[in-house]
């Protein structure tokens, strides 16, 4: 009996070999995972206190890579191509999984890792035509071109690391997914940039917003609620004003629903989940101060691109030196063969997203609704370009097939109503030079930098700010801005049967929003409208341009004529809010009016008292900001009830600037909450009711304020998630200084300043920076998220950019060597 039991146990034990080799469901192969020699335990190894000599096959000469105490690799090479090979090597060494995850996501090949669960994400990428565009760009690249040389050099460096890597050095995530690292191809870089374009310039919401809103409240109201220009005017290109201009107009009442729009609205994607008209993602800041307004008489530049914050970080810090050719320090995106944001001995630069409308939809007529092969243009049928997409699973099996169709404008898609829309989008036009950042890094002054960027940078359009050691500051919104026929509106769906509706080209350079050494002595961009509406140019619609941070930066800059680097660093986490400054007085006024009407309550008194004493600063210890934010959500919900679809979902939210304009019309019919049929609310009724409701909801959710649950550092805490969303690899509940529409809006969760940098440009260049993460992509490494505390506190590290290895206290010295020459 005992033997029988033991035998059964032994059989069961031996059965462990199956999950050990193949894995079960989401559980990776246990043997490979737990293997102490070649498995996940290898992530415990730390070989940084060492000297290494590595051979890279395509290297032409030795390259020294010295890591400093912050784990930043300083690459000293004798040719640009060798420097890029070394860049590929160092980035792969620290961020290989991230690189592969990003190119797979961009190229729609995540199913090969995760199976059908990733199919929707892959389908989205492929149906947008992003991988197809990257492939076209790859094919079009001349094999002898400098771009090809650089892309191949980068791939050589990445693959040199992959080829040398022992299984124990595979990033942990590969073990957990049960997959092997794939080799790197030059096209992966193109996928990566295409994905960046999707992140920053996928603006189909413009058309969706107008159409869906018109379906509910008519065209006139839709146009007024979502104006082309923002009513708060503080443009990127200075307009000579010494203060922001407010151009509020009275909103027309809601009109009759537009039936046609109702049909079209059904075919558009869901809107983002913003609920109070404040853009939450991809907001960025940059500003520059001319020597005349700085304490030291040297130009200053600050930049902090706000993007998805993730672990590993989006950015990787690096220094590239090729004597006489290149000396650039900053951050690269793993997978990109260049420093994207940074500084040289001559210039420093940073970007914010322009947010221009660079995507248009066209309603197409096709020959066969169920299986179209041709589409109608100017009365003639044109052949659709057809492309079959195969989605492969983990073991190479087909898990999905798509037939994609393209018009001359771009990808064609369809909804259940049988309507076909094609999409023209600048991101799909393969006109980004892969060497544009390297070329621009050779600039000797600000103008050269911007001109160089303008040659090779098409999308996504960026507000590029630059300062130089000669004391110049400049900004230019660079990218392709479509020239549309005068009779078309970029925010509407066009008739695709007329070629006359097509774009006529792109804006010439002199039309770009730009400024060089303006008399005001400073420049700032924070995703506000680039041009003064008086310029009468169409770049997008109001809701894509957020005015609040720009108002704040400009206020700070105007008030200080002796700016220092320390001031710039402090401003990057300035807790003040122009949005709160604009709205709080309206709440207080409303409470007073309602009390005068005899409708006072203890809750209203309490809420009013709290807003009265609030200094309108989002600091971690503050206990009032949470009330204001809740009240703003309540106002938004109660005011824009006209925009609720039958499902109860609000189809779009007008910008907070539009809401502020409505404040000036206390009796507008928009204030009335139609869901309360017995009364007609005015502005003050809505504001005070919102305040009371906000207070009540906070008490319900967090308890009384005296209990301490309203602390902004708790309620507004942010998080930085791992790329796979694994909590153990993430950092959560980070109390930050800043809130919605402040210069540090990271508290809203998941997005925020992904790289903060301040540079002083004088006889020498001094710089400071940090990002929320760490150089290592290994979650078990001490360098994985070691920078988060500094970032949270709003402090920056000094960035050390030596001209050579002298004086560089290296923690690891790597010499990358060309292959040995065999003796014949």
């Amino acid at each position, binding site marked *: 009996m005992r033997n029988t039991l033991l*035998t059964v146990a032994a059989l069961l034990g031996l059965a462990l070999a199956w999950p050990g080799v193949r894995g079960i469901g989401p559980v990776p192969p246990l043997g490979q995972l737990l293997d102490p020699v070649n498995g996940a335990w290898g992530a415990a190894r730390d070989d940084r206190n060492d000297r290494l000599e590595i051979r890279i096959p395509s290297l032409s000469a030795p390259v020294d890579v010295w890591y400093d105490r912050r784990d930043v690799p300083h690459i000293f090479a004798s040719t640009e191509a060798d420097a890029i090979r070394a860049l590929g090597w160092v980035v792969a060494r620290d961020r290989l999984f991230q690189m592969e995850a990003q190119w797979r996501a961009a190229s729609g090949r995540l199913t090969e890792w995760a199976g059908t669960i990733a199919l929707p994400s892959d389908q989205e990428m492929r149906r947008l035509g992003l991988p197809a565009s990257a492939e076209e760009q790859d094919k079009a690249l001349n094999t002898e071109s400098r771009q090809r040389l650089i892309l191949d050099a980068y791939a050589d460096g990445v693959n040199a690391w992959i080829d040398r890597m022992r299984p124990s050095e595979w990033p942990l995530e590969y073990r957990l997914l049960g997959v092997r690292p794939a080799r790197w191809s030059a096209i992966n870089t193109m996928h990566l940039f295409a994905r960046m374009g999707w992140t920053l310039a996928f603006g189909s919401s413009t058309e969706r917003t107008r159409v869906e809103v018109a379906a509910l409240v008519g065209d006139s109201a839709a146009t007024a609620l979502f104006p082309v220009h923002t009513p708060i005017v503080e443009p990127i290109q200075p307009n000579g004003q010494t203060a922001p201009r407010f151009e509020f107009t009275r909103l027309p009442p809601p009109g009759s629903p537009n039936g046609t729009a109702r049909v079209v609205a059904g075919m558009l994607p869901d809107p983002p989940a913003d609920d109070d008209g404040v853009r939450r993602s991809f907001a960025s800041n940059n500003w520059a101060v001319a020597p005349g307004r700085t304490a030291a008489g040297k130009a200053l530049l600050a930049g902090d691109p706000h993007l998805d914050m993730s672990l590993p970080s989006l950015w990787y810090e690096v220094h590239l030196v090729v004597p006489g050719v290149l000396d650039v320090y900053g951050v690269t995106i793993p997978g990109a063969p260049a420093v994207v944001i940074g500084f040289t001995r001559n210039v420093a630069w940073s970007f914010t997203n322009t947010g221009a409308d660079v995507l248009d939809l066209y309603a197409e007529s096709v020959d066969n609704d169920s299986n179209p092969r041709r589409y109608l243009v100017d009365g003639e049928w044109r052949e659709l370009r057809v492309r079959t997409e195969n989605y492969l699973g983990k073991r190479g099996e087909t898990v999905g097939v798509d037939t994609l169709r393209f018009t001359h404008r771009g990808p064609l898609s369809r909804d259940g109503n049988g309507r076909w829309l094609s999409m023209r989008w600048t991101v799909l036009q393969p006109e980004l030079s892969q060497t544009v950042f390297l070329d621009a890094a050779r600039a000797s002054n600000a103008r050269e930098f911007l001109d160089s960027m303008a040659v090779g940078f098409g999308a996504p359009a960026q507000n590029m700010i630059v300062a130089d050691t000669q004391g110049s500051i400049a900004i230019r919104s660079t990218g392709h801005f479509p020239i549309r026929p005068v009779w078309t509106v970029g925010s509407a769906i066009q008739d695709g049967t007329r070629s006359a509706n097509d774009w006529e080209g792109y804006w010439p350079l002199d039309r770009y929003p730009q400024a060089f050494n303006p008399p005001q002595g400073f420049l700032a961009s924070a995703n506000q409208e680039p041009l003064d509406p008086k310029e009468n140019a169409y770049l997008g619609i109001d809701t894509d341009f957020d005015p609040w941070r720009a108002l704040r930066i400009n206020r700070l800059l105007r008030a200080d004529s002796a700016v220092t680097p320390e001031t710039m660093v402090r401003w990057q986490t300035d807790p003040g809010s122009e949005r709160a400054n604009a709205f709080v007085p309206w709440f207080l006024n409303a409470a007073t009016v309602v009390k005068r009407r005899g409708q006072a309550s203890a809750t209203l008194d309490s809420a009013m008292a709290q807003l009265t004493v609030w200094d309108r600063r989002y600091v971690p210890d503050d206990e009032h900001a949470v009330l204001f934010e809740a009240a703003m959500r309540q106002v938004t919900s109660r005011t824009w009830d006209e925009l609720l679809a039958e499902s109860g979902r609000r189809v779009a939210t007008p910008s907070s600037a539009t809401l502020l304009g409505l404040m000036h019309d206390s009796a507008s019919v928009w204030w009335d909450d139609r869901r309360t049929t017995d009364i007609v609310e005015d502005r003050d009724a809505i504001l005070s009711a919102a305040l009371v409701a906000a207070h009540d909801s906070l008490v319900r959710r967090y308890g009384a304020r005296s209990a301490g649950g309203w602390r902004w550092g708790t309620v507004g805490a942010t998080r930085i998630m791992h790329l796979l969303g694994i909590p153990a*690899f993430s950092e959560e509940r980070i109390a930050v200084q800043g809130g919605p529409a402040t210069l540090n809006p990271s508290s809203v969760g998941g997005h925020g300043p992904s790289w903060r940098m301040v540079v002083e440009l004088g006889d020498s260049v001094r710089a400071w920076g940090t990002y929320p993460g760490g150089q290592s992509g290994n979650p078990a490494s001490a360098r994985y998220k070691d920078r988060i505390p500094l970032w949270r506190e709003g402090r920056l590290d000094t960035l050390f950019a030596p001209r050579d290895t002298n004086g560089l206290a290296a923690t690891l010295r790597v010499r990358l060597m060309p292959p040995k020459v065999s003796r014949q």
Partner: protein
Amino acid sequence: MIGILLGVTGILLGTWLGFPTLAPVLVGLAMGVTVPMAARRAALAGVIAWGGVLLAATLRGDNIAGVSRTLGGAMGVPSWLLLIVTLLYPAILAASAAWLASLAARRFSPWSGGHATLSRGLPPT
């Protein structure tokens, strides 16, 4: 003792060659037909082999505790459990294989006593 040492060596070699699951199984099978009390000894060899590697890594300064915490967190298990499972994995495979092999050896061997007889130094009957 020699049997255990050979078992440890075999498991380490196989693991190093990239066969972390096959190595304990093969070593267990081999021990099952050649070593008395094979299951226990094979289990011990598995624990010593993989545990030794982890111990050596710890002594070298590798952050084994950190990986245990991180990986355990990712898999939703306590960090100590991951260590235990790592030690048990080769042990269970080797012991199971050894037990089955010894059973088979007794059943199919032309010598009635199998390795037990051999171990006593008696001639097969």
